[in-house]
């Protein structure tokens, strides 16, 4: 135990006295949260829509106002040429054009069938789907209000109720998963340099002539970083709360518990990488590539795992972030309890054990 404590203490000194490690510890989580949190935003607002009004009545002007008064749509900077609306779409000055043909006001009063033209820039299918939805919702509301109070509409309608993220804010969906990815990357980066640094500076030679067991060295190297990565996790969560307003429905204690498991798993992966490579540079590169990219792609962070090809789905099972993304979303957004998430935690523990086992084998058989 005393050996473990001293190894841990020594690692603490290394971090505190090394500018590069300190940068990873302090700056990286914040920078990544900001970057990803703001850059990845699927909420579509302020879509530029142009209205070509041939009807020129108070009704048609009301409809246009209704669009522009919503937060979804805004006016183009320059007016669109009535004869060639497509030109504006091509140049990107507008994302959609609504054409109100003559007879709109009249049709409203008589109730005869009438269609409005909506030309949409479909090059970004997320935006074009949003335009269709928003436009038809606004039009529907407009029509319902214009109707004669005596007219009775059929009362059957769908009233969807969105649970856990009622405003469908994409940040609520992304930021918890972001915590998972940042924690993985920071933790793995921290430990990935610990053994390779000893190989590079030659200190491993002296260390291994002392009667210390490989497992003592590995655990002694992991322990201090559990504390450091936990602090990082808390920083990122506070950011999530303050900057992105992500709700926290579930138990803080439960997240702390799972967080500790996840951090330990991530640190073990860093240790594993460190035991395989010779220099710190290679270790950092290797860690960044093997943790960041697969985690972003295969954890369900952005892309739903169940829509992937089977091979990728299988691969995703060895990505620790996959499990923690489920855990943290479950706890923060749904208030999921231990019994729902225990399985995910167990798999993380299993991955950690495997990583530490391989690392200690590598460590004892391959010196320097």
């Amino acid at each position, binding site marked *: 135990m005393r*050996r473990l404590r*001293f*190894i841990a203490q*020594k690692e603490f*000194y290394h971090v505190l006295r090394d500018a590069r490690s300190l940068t990873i510890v302090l700056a990286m989580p914040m920078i990544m949260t900001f970057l990803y949190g703001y850059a990845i935003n699927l909420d579509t607002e302020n879509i530029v829509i142009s209205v070509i009004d041939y009807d020129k009545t108070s009704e048609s002007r009301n409809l246009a106002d209704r669009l522009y008064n919503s937060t979804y749509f805004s006016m183009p900077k320059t007016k669109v040429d009535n004869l060639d609306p497509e030109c504006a779409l091509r140049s990107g000055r507008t994302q959609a054009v609504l054409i109100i043909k003559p007879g709109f006001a009249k049709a409203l009063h008589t109730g005869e069938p009438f269609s409005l033209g909506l030309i949409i820039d479909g090059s970004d299918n997320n935006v074009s789907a949003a335009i269709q939805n928003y436009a038809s919702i606004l039009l529907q509301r407009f029509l319902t209000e214009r109707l004669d109070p005596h007219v009775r509409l059929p009362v059957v309608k769908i009233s969807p109720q969105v649970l856990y993220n009622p405003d469908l804010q994409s940040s609520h969906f992304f930021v918890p998963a972001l915590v998972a990815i940042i924690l993985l990357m920071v933790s793995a980066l921290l430990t990935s340099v610990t053994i390779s640094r000893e190989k590079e500076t030659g200190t491993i*030679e002296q260390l291994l*002539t*002392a009667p210390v067991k490989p497992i003592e060295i590995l655990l002694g190297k992991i322990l201090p970083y559990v504390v450091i990565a936990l602090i990082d996790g808390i920083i990122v969560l506070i950011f999530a709360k303050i900057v992105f307003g992500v709700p926290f429905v579930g138990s803080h204690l439960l997240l702390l518990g799972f967080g500790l498991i996840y951090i330990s798993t991530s640190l073990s992966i860093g240790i594993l990488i460190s035991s395989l490579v010779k220099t710190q540079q290679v270790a950092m590169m290797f860690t960044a590539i093997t943790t960041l990219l697969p985690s972003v792609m295969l954890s369900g962070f952005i892309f739903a795992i169940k829509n992937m090809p089977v091979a990728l789905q299988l691969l995703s099972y060895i990505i620790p972030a996959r499990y923690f993304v489920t855990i943290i979303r479950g706890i923060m957004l749904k208030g999921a309890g231990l019994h729902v998430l225990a399985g995910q935690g167990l798999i993380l523990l299993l991955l950690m054990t495997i990583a530490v086992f391989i690392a200690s084998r590598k460590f004892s058989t391959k010196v320097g």
Partner: protein
Amino acid sequence: MNQPAVVIENLSRHFGQFKAVDNISLTVNKGETFGFLGANGAGKTTTIRMLCGLLMPTSGGGKVAGLDVYTQPELIKKRIGYMSQRFSLYPDLTGSENMRFYGAAYGLSTSRVHQRIAALSQMLSLHDFIDRSAASLPVGWRQRLALGVALLHEPEILFLDEPTAGVDPVFRRMFWEILYELAEQGVTVFVTTHYMDEAEFCGRISIMHQGRIIRVGRPLDLAQELGCENLEETFVTLVRSQEETNAPS
């Protein structure tokens, strides 16, 4: 009772086709100061690393302090002190931090570590720089600190791999005075060096060439045997004659 400190029997270590250490045998007695000489790449460091449990031999046997290098490396580690060729203490830690860390690694109690640090600071005059980071120390001071770490747990055998490389003569002399003092206390010193004046201080020396030990004996006896004036000439003569016999005709 006078059990040898190091016994090597037909020890070999191959790296692929390359025979770094090729079937060497050697016995070093307890309390002896033994000079393990050889040209660069002769296999000295490989031999020392096998004896310290850092490297497994390919074949042959070795006993250190009566313990087997294959089966008891963990027990050997407790009884030996090692100074590698390359400075290998933590550069970002201070001298005393390095010593406290290794004290714990060797399983010494906190009070024992403090005692040892005090005693070694006295013996190696480490006081002036023990609280400076190891990276900031001049080479000679670093080597004294490294010796201090190697001596923390009072080992019976010291393996020193070129401990005085790149160190000025005054420091070297001081370093050897310390080694003498240790030998007087009964510590076996197994040391490699390229400085022949240092080798002359050794009780016995061996000369290694291309993985084999070509001569073992007292320095002056070897010189006399070959009719050389000093050890340096002896060493050069021996290594050259080996290279001539090994050269393809």
